[in-house]
């Protein structure tokens, strides 16, 4: 690795002056080949657990530096690729210098080109010495504006899918609670902004699968109410199926038509289902006999609900069929166990449920495998709560006190690599959107 870099430095210096010309020469090299095979699309053998090296070439033209920086960072945050940071123009010599790219450790070279209102992406398979994938992505006009960035994130996510078979999660957003408002932030930490008035004290944001709506709870003089907000128009719709008492922790069904939530009155708190955008009567799911049953979340197939219940005397995670039958304890409770497990979130592939459990007096993020009920502890630094899966089924956003205040962090459940998402005043109760199309 070190010798390769040393060699590349010499070559770099030699060809630096030729770079603009070389990029121009590359422009017509479009391929119409569209490999539509499922999974890994560029002929690369991707073994999970390994990280193929990827080199992103410099980008000429307006916004070029930002585009390269965004794609590099997105691919790095994806945790499935090793982004080679060495700026090495020599790679682009006479087409792409595959031999040099290979020496740098790259198995894939990504070549973005700004062409009018399009971001033209060429992906090279270094070992096979060929262009493996070409695609145009529409770029909005306003350079570095939120939707322009989302369009570039969309290109990053496709690149990750071509290489690894799994779409990246850069073109997503995360909703959370800060300063008495619901905030939304891009998954790379850009564009944090409130979408509700500050001080209204909303809690527990949940994304509609389309990304067009957020549901959350608000306090009223007569209890709490679930509100569904249209993120395009800002209009809100209150869920009035259970008009008084406690109405909290909404979760949309995978088809978006139904909201599961917890409703409490004089006789305990139970899970209910109601139509997302209509005012039909609610259907009760759990029968908790006066206990606390809350924090519902649907399985990816929509047939089951995981939730927190205090029915055994302290909070544990349970799963039930959506019709209320076959409720069963999920987490590994044993007699005499007085721990505290809550806040489940079902992984998008259906295999795991993330939750929080009290370990040595502090909450930590755990996962449990639904097949063999094996558990893993993902965190140990500070108090860590309220996990929410990314759509790639690999990353989890959660609240942590490790810096002294509650902030949001993202962990790669495979490698444990963690990055801080929010900075400043405390943030909590995060929810991760599905992939969002650039609008």
């Amino acid at each position, binding site marked *: 690795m070190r010798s390769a870099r040393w060699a590349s430095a010499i070559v770099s210096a030699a060809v630096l002056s030729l770079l603009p010309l070389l990029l121009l020469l590359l422009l017509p090299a479009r391929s119409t080949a569209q490999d539509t095979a499922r999974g890994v699309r560029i002929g690369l053998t991707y073994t999970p657990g390994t990280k193929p090296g990827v080199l992103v070439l410099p980008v000429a033209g307006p916004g070029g530096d930002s585009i390269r920086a965004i794609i590099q960072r997105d691919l790095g945050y994806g945790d499935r690729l090793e982004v080679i940071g060495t700026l090495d123009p020599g790679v682009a010599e006479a087409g792409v210098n595959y031999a040099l790219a290979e020496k740098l450790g790259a198995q894939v070279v990504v070549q973005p080109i700004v062409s009018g209102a399009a971001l033209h992406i060429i992906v090279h398979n270094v070992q096979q010495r060929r262009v493996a994938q070409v695609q145009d992505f529409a770029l909005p006009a306003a350079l570095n504006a939120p939707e322009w960035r989302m369009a570039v994130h969309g290109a990053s996510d496709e690149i990750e899918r071509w290489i690894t078979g799994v779409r990246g999660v850069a073109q997503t957003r995360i909703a959370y609670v800060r300063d008495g408002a619901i905030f939304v932030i891009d998954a790379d930490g850009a564009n944090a902004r409130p979408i509700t008035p500050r001080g209204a004290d909303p*809690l527990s944001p949940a994304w509609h699968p389309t990304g067009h709506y957020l549901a959350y709870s608000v306090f009223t*003089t007569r209890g709490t109410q679930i509100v569904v907000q249209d993120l395009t128009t800002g209009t809100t719709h209150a869920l009035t199926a259970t008009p008084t*008492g406690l109405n909290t922790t909404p979760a949309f069904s995978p088809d978006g038509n139904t909201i599961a939530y917890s409703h*409490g009155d004089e006789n*305990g708190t139970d899970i209910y289902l109601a139509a997302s955008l209509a005012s039909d009567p609610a259907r009760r799911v759990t029968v908790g006999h006066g206990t*606390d049953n809350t*924090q519902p979340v649907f399985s990816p197939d929509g047939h089951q609900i995981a939730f927190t219940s*205090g029915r055994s005397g302290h909070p544990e995670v349970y799963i039930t069929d959506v019709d209320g039958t076959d409720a069963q304890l999920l987490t590994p409770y044993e007699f005499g166990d007085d721990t505290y497990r809550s806040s489940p979130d079902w992984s998008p592939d259906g295999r795991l449920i993330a939750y929080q459990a009290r370990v040595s007096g502090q*909450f930590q993020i755990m996962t449990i495998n639904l097949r063999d009920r094996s558990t893993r502890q993902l965190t140990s630094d500070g108090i860590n709560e309220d996990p929410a899966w990314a759509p790639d089924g690999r990353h989890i956003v959660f609240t942590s006190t490790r810096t002294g205040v509650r902030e949001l962090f993202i962990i790669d459940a495979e490698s444990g690599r963690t990055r801080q998402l929010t900075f400043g005043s405390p943030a*909590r109760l995060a929810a991760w959107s599905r992939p969002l199309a650039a609008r």
Partner: protein
Amino acid sequence: MTNRRIPRGATVGATLLVAAVITAACSHKPPAPPPAPAQTASAPPAVDSSRIRDSLANAKRIADSLAAERDREGAAVAAARNTLLAKIYFDFDKSDLTDQDRATLDAKLPILQANPGLRIRIEGNTDKRGSDEYNLALGQRRAAAAKRYLTEHGVDAGRLDLISYGSERPVAEGDTEDAYAQNRRDEFVIVAGGDNIKVAAR
């Protein structure tokens, strides 16, 4: 909280009477001077100034007495209000009423019975430990526990609203057992009928 009023009803008549006397007694202007010596047959009789002094002293006595009574009643109303608003406290992750909680709730019963127009909101709260979202359900259970006790002792359920703030509205900050204990509470808020609280008969 500052909206304390003199109770109406039985004392209204006396209040009106004494109001007139106080108005006279408190006037800075002396009574009109007697007219000049009689020059006509219709001249009024001479005023006895000692009777005026007695009348003023008497009015002051009545005023003082009523003011004292008003203070006593004001204090009784304030005490009744404090009894209504007295908080109850819970153990960690529990909604069971302690003996102390029952005594606190028992004291509210005669006031609620003497004031059928009173409407109360019971606000359930938790300490910051535990999940924020689960705490909302726990706070609801705590508010419901107080409501159940009061309705079982004759208070109409329609007069008791419930809300849970979970761990969102702490009264004590910090990570001490004492702060946690102060935050695990039900608060009682008067939402209607609080302007003319009648003190319960002893």
